C-alpha cells in the first residue's frame, strides 16, 4: 500500500467516489441487483438488520483487500474456489465473533450469517473490481458496497419494525395507549412482519430512486 501512498493521497477524489457511488447511483441492491439473497429475511427488526449490514461490510472489504493482494498469483481457472475459501474463512471469523459478543442476534440471523459466503455482492465485487485493482481502492470499494447494501437493509428494517411492531431498536415508539386493545384506534400492520413485505418495500425504494434519477430507468 505504500507505493499507492506515494502516487496519490489515500482519500483522493477518485478513491472517495468508490465509497459514495455504491451508496447512490451504483447501489448494489437497487441498481446492480446483487446481494438480495441472504438479506431480506433479516429485516423484520432493525437490530439484526444493522448487525447483518456491518458483517457484510466487513467481509466485503476484507475479502476485496485479500483477493486484490493475491490477484497476480491466483491462476485464472481456479479463482472461484480460491475466492470462496477466502470469503468462507472471513465469514467463519465473523460468525464466531457474533456468537461471542451478540449471541441473541446471532441466533436470530441463524443460517444467514453463513449465507454471506454466497452473497452475490461479495463475489460480484471480487470478480468485477478486486481482481483488476490495487488493494487500497479495492478495500474502499468493498466498504462502499457494503454500506450501500447496509443502507437499504437498515431502511427496510426501520419501516418494518416501526409499522409492524411499533418499536425501533426494541424501544417502543408508538405509545401503548393508542392501541385498539387499550381503547385506542391504532393497530400494528401485520403485513409488515411477513417476509414478502420486504420485497415490496424494496420495490418501492427502487421506484422512488428511479423517479428521482431518470437515467436509471430500464428500457
Amino acid at each position, binding site marked *: 500500500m505504500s507505493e499507492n501512498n506515494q502516487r496519490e493521497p489515500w482519500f483522493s477524489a477518485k478513491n472517495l467516489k468508490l465509497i459514495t457511488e455504491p451508496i447512490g447511483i451504483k447501489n448494489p441492491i*437497487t441498481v446492480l*441487483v*446483487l*446481494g*438480495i*439473497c*441472504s*438479506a*431480506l*429475511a433479516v429485516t423484520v427488526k432493525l437490530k439484526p438488520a444493522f448487525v447483518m449490514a456491518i458483517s457484510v461490510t466487513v467481509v466485503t472489504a476484507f475479502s476485496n483487500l485479500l483477493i486484490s493482494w493475491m490477484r497476480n498469483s491466483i491462476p485464472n481457472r481456479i479463482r*472461484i*474456489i480460491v475466492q*470462496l*475459501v477466502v470469503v*468462507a*474463512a472471513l*465469514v*467463519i471469523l465473523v*460468525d*464466531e465473533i457474533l456468537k461471542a459478543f451478540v449471541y441473541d442476534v446471532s441466533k436470530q440471523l*441463524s*443460517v444467514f450469517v*453463513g*449465507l454471506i*459466503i*454466497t*452473497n*452475490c455482492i461479495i*463475489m460480484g465485487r471480487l470478480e468485477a473490481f478486486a481482481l483488476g485493482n490495487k488493494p487500497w481502492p479495492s478495500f474502499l470499494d468493498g466498504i462502499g458496497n457494503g454500506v450501500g447494501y447496509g443502507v437499504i437493509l437498515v431502511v427496510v428494517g426501520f419501516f418494518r419494525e416501526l409499522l409492524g411492531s411499533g418499536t425501533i431498536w426494541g424501544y417502543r415508539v408508538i405509545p401503548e395507549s393508542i392501541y385498539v386493545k387499550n381503547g385506542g384506534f391504532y393497530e400494528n400492520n401485520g403485513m409488515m412482519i*411477513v*417476509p*414478502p*413485505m*420486504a*420485497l*415490496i418495500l*424494496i*420495490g*418501492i425504494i*427502487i*421506484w*422512488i*430512486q*428511479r*423517479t428521482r434519477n*431518470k437515467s*436509471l*430507468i*430500464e*428500457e
Partner: protein
Amino acid sequence: MENLINIFVRSVFIDNMVFAYFLGMCSYLAVSKTVKTSAGLGVAVVFVMAITVPVNYLMNKFLLLPGALSWLHPSLASLDLSFLSFIMFIAVIASIVQLVEMVVEKYSPSLYNALGIFLPLIAVNCAILGGSLFMQEREYETLAEATVFGLGSGLGWFLAIISIAAIREKIKYSNIPKPLRGLGIAFILTGLMGIAFMTFMGIKL
C-alpha cells in the same frame, strides 16, 4: 414414509426457498426474463441440490458434528469441528458442481448445452448453500430425510423461477409506471407471489 412426504411438501410449498427465505434471489431476478432459460437454470438447481444436500449431510454426520469422528479412532470422540461447516459445505458444493459439469458434458452433451453457463453459476447460488445450512440447522435424522429435503427445496425454487418468468413474459405488454419497469415490478411481483404462497402455511400431512 409419512414423515418424508411431510418434509417434501413443506420444502416445496411452505418453506419455499424463494418466497419464504429469499434464497437464490440474484439469479432468480437476473435469469427470469424468459421461461426457457429459467427452466434450464431451474433443472440445474434441482439436480445440484438433490446431490449436495445428502452429501453434506454425510459430511456433517461423519466429520463435523461433536464426536462425529469417533468412527475413525475412539480418542477423537471429543473433537468438535462444527465451526468448519461453512468452509466444508462450500467446498463440497463447488467441487460437486464441477464434477456434475464434467459428467454431464461427457455423457449427455445435449443436456450440457441446455444447462450451458448455468452450472458454474450455481456454485454461488445462495439457495444451494442455504439448503445445506438449513439441513444442518433443522437436524434431519436420516439420509432419506435430507435427500427428500434437498429435492423438495430444489423443486420449490424451480417452481418459483418458472412462475415469475411466465409472469414477466406476459407483463411486458402492460403499461407499468416507467420507474417501476424491470427490476422494480419484479420485486413487487415476487412479494405478491410470496403472499400467495403463505396460504400454504400450516398445512401438515
